[in-house]
């Protein structure tokens, strides 16, 4: 039986080693993430006490279903992205190893202050990674906002600590049940803001544009999938399991999520650069997931996180690669870019379809589930927002795909001569990676029962009320 603390300790150890063994940084990184992947399958669910102090006095790691699937997916994507963009790792090996430790720590910890520590570790690595683009102003912007966010999180946590005298998640959750929730308004909201800065919720996400919009083929997919996924999983953990949210705050926050969804999609519609479209779409998706978590729909929210991070890993890899090769990611200048990169283009298309939620792709399954969930709560306005968002999302993705596949002028048949003059050479590792990820999206779309069985082997995730609707072979719909 493995102790999950190894998932944090091994990358940290290798990070120290990589400083000594300077020339093997990227190899050590791959070793670390591969070892982590293997370790995950040897893990046993349960609660792990660290350092011999029993919680609520000591720190513990919680490995329940929710934590297990989240570390599985985050570590898996981390490994795949590093394999795909191996050439970009170079000196970043140490930073990435530390960030892997931080991400795993955030997903596993059972202590709110410990979460803050890992949040800071991860953020610092993120600041360093964001500076790879050499746009230091944007990194600085991110640094200021990220620090402010974690500062507010800490502030909220201190208030909670002074009220409950505990930092342990389970303990706070227990005490919250009997507390006056209206008095908890400010600390809850401060923690929300702290997490919202990293989870890209409007209006706390001013940094995203500069950082995501200039990220290369390594940093972009890492941010948009591993980091974004982790932040949303943590958000779900804190806001569904730990903190009780008063109905006033809950409604307000759901509205903030819904507004983020619509505003993000509308902003993406008005953009022409590939990475900007993708980043605003990510913002919209975060808003959706936050609204789902706050509505108590954990299962659909998790499905939607998967949909978002798998698709975005594919799309940011290809979008980033095109920008790396040509120096631009204006869709107009890259017309017909998929003409010579058919497999990569196909993966991009599958990812976009899945994100829109078109049938036969995984996203459709998660869309049906989240709609069923929301309707089961007798909420009839949120689906309208989500479907409106889906229409907008579909329009800008189809517009982008049509441009990238079929170059041409209006009134003339699409031919090769209109295609971009840039040569884009997507190397084999990336192609294999994106095809692998998009194949997952297709297989999970055709056989959704597989996802369900893996997700809900031992009952519901986090809370019992979360409805999980499914269609599978046995029971129909």
């Amino acid at each position, binding site marked *: 039986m493995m102790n999950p603390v190894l998932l944090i300790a091994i990358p940290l150890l290798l990070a120290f080693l990589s400083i000594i063994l300077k020339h093997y940084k990227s190899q050590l990184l791959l070793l670390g993430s591969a070892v982590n992947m293997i370790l995950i399958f040897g893990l046993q669910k349960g609660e792990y006490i660290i350092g011999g102090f029993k919680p609520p006095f000591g720190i513990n790691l919680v490995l329940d279903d929710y934590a297990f699937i989240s570390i599985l997916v985050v570590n898996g994507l981390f490994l795949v992205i590093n394999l795909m963009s191996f050439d970009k790792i170079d000196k970043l090996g140490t930073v990435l190893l530390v960030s892997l430790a931080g991400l795993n720590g955030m997903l596993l910890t059972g202590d709110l202050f410990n979460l803050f520590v890992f949040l800071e570790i991860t953020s610092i690595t993120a600041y360093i990674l964001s500076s790879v683009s050499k746009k230091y102003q944007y990194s600085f912007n991110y640094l200021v906002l990220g620090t402010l966010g974690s500062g507010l999180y800490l502030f909220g946590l201190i208030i909670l600590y002074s009220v409950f005298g505990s930092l342990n998640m389970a303990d706070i959750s227990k005490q919250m049940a009997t507390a006056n929730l209206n008095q908890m308004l400010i600390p809850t909201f401060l923690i929300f803001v702290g997490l919202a800065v990293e989870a890209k919720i409007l209006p706390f996400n001013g940094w995203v544009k500069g950082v995501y919009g200039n990220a290369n083929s390594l940093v972009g997919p890492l941010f948009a999938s591993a980091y974004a996924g982790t932040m949303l999983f943590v958000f779900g953990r804190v806001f569904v399991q730990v903190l009780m949210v008063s109905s006033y705050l809950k409604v307000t926050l759901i509205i903030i999520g819904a507004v983020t969804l619509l505003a993000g999609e509308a902003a993406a519609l008005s*953009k022409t650069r590939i990475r900007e479209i993708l980043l605003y779409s990510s913002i919209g998706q975060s808003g959706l997931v936050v609204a789902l978590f706050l509505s108590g729909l954990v299962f659909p929210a998790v499905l939607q996180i998967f949909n978002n991070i798998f698709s975005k890993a594919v799309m940011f890899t290809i979008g980033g690669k095109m920008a790396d090769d040509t120096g631009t990611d204006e869709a107009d200048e890259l017309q017909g870019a998929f003409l010579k990169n058919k497999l990569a283009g196909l993966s991009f298309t599958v990812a976009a379809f899945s994100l829109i939620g078109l049938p036969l792709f995984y996203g*459709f399954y998660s869309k049906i589930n989240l709609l069923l969930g929301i309707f089961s709560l007798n909420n*009839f306005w949120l689906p309208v927002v989500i*479907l409106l968002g889906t229409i907008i999302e579909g329009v800008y993705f189809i517009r982008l795909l049509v441009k990238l*596949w079929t170059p041409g002028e209006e009134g003339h048949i699409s031919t090769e001569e209109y295609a971009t003059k840039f040569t884009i050479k997507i190397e084999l590792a990336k192609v294999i990676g994106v095809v692998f990820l998009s194949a997952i999206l297709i297989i999970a779309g055709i056989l959704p029962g597989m996802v369900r069985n893996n997700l809900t082997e031992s009952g519901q995730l986090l809370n019992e009320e979360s409805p999980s609707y499914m269609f599978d072979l046995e029971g129909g719909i």
Partner: protein
Amino acid sequence: MSFDLLILMMFAGAFLAYLISKSNSEAGGISTVVISLISLVLLLLGKSQVGNEFAILYMTFKVTTIGWYFSAVMILVYSMTSFFNSYWMKQMLYPNAYNFLYLFSLAGTVGLFFAADLVTLFIFWEMVVWSSTFIVPLGKSRRAAVVYYTISSIGSMATLYAIMLLHAKSGTFIISEAFAWLATDPTMATIVFFIFILAGLTKIGIFPFHIWLPLAHGSAPHTFSPVLSGGLVKMGAFIAYMSVGVLPAYQAFSGSLKIMGMPIQIYLLMVLGAISIVLGTLMAIKQDDAKKLIAYSSVANGGYILIGILMMDQLSCAGSLMHLFNHAIASAAAFLTIAVVAHRTGTTKISELGGMIHRMPVTFTVYLISIISLAGIPPMGGFVSKWLIIQGLADKGLLFMALAAFFGSIGSFLYVFRPLAAVFLGQLAPKNYELEGATLMMKIPMVILSALIIFFGVFPRYILEVIGEIQSSIGITPIQLEGNAIQAINGLLNSYHVFVIFGFGFLISLAIFMLLQKSRKVGLMDTFTSAEFIHTPELYHYSHDFYAPFERLYKNHPSVENFLVNIANKFDELGQMVNALFFSHKPSITVFWITVVTAIIYLGGARI
């Protein structure tokens, strides 16, 4: 072969066509013919399977007569059009993908028509939408694909909302059970009715959703326009049929306000149908592009189909179901003839053509037959169906609908005559003297389609018998047939007799034409100008500004297109506003917003 295998085989066929096209794109084009023809035969032979239920993965299906009928129409249009595919392979940027998507969308429609639950229905609907979306940009316009997707997506998302709402209320996705549940709840029935039917309206191209038809039909690859206009538009009719026939609309709305004897919910949609007829007709008259012209005529014909289906009675509904078949084959045939012209001359502009009858007489004949049917003139199929629709309208005393229907019929003479006179008749341009006609492979589907148009015009009972079965299955009185004659309120219509009389008329005029002196032929640019040199003789050609005086009557008409474009721009502006307000590169702006939101939360919380 049972239909679950048929659907799977059609999907497999799509992949097979892809693989074949990879080695040889022309062979791939021919494989689409083979696969779609095999599907057609298997479907027609499987009529006896009506009532069977089956499942593929989590999707459930039920074979119904209406599903079988729609599938037959769809596969017929696809298979006939597929004969043209191999000629266009060289022009296509992605011939393999074209063949794949072509067959994939066909398989999707068949799955849609047999769906037994609403989720399956939606799955196949969306599959057809995305697969056909990516064929459109291979043609002349990228914007058309985006507009097509946008309008379709508005419809399908609305339908998805209705499906989910219905499930939340009735607790089931099974089509028959969920819709039956609505019979007792008029409010919910009204909401679901209006939202659910939106997908149908967008697909048929009912006003104000008609703008995608001229764009997409007009600029899609020439081999796909017949399918879009003849085939895929009919998916919308299927949804409309489900919203009135399967959803017990008349039963649920029995208590609601009546206008001219119709429930207001249904009457409102009929008004939209009537507007589509008038608008489609007027816009078609204006078009100089033959493909756009037929596209607008599809808008008008969509109006007929919608009105007839909404009536859900003995005559109009039968007429409408027959009309969708007649329109499917006639508009496919018309688009195919234009495709032949485009293939040989490289243009579809009416004013640049002329005299094609001298070079492609078969194509001309096919076009003539198809437009006679489109305009609803006997003895073609289009006459019988329009006659039935108008009979039903007259019977119910729906004056305005009947007026619109008459207007559309007469207006259609104008617009179908324009390409006839300016593309096929008249003088041949000098550059076209050496033009070749249609190849044998192109003639086969065109001749089959025209034969069908005439056959079902003369013997409509073969199709009306199936429609009678459909009508009985949803509990309305089936159409009454006596041999070849159709029983209606004011007597019998025996189209065989009509055909014989028209045949005599035709023979007499042919005799006059043969006996009388032939007219003298003049050159195309033989223009009398009092010795003044003409730089642009085309402007003086009669096909230029064909209906100028008539068009001037409604030159300054309002357009819903501007309105829709404005809405799209508003979303764009919203995006720019979001961008300007929240996404600066200065951290202070975000700090400001954090402060504002915290203050709002704090003040709001203080009031509790």
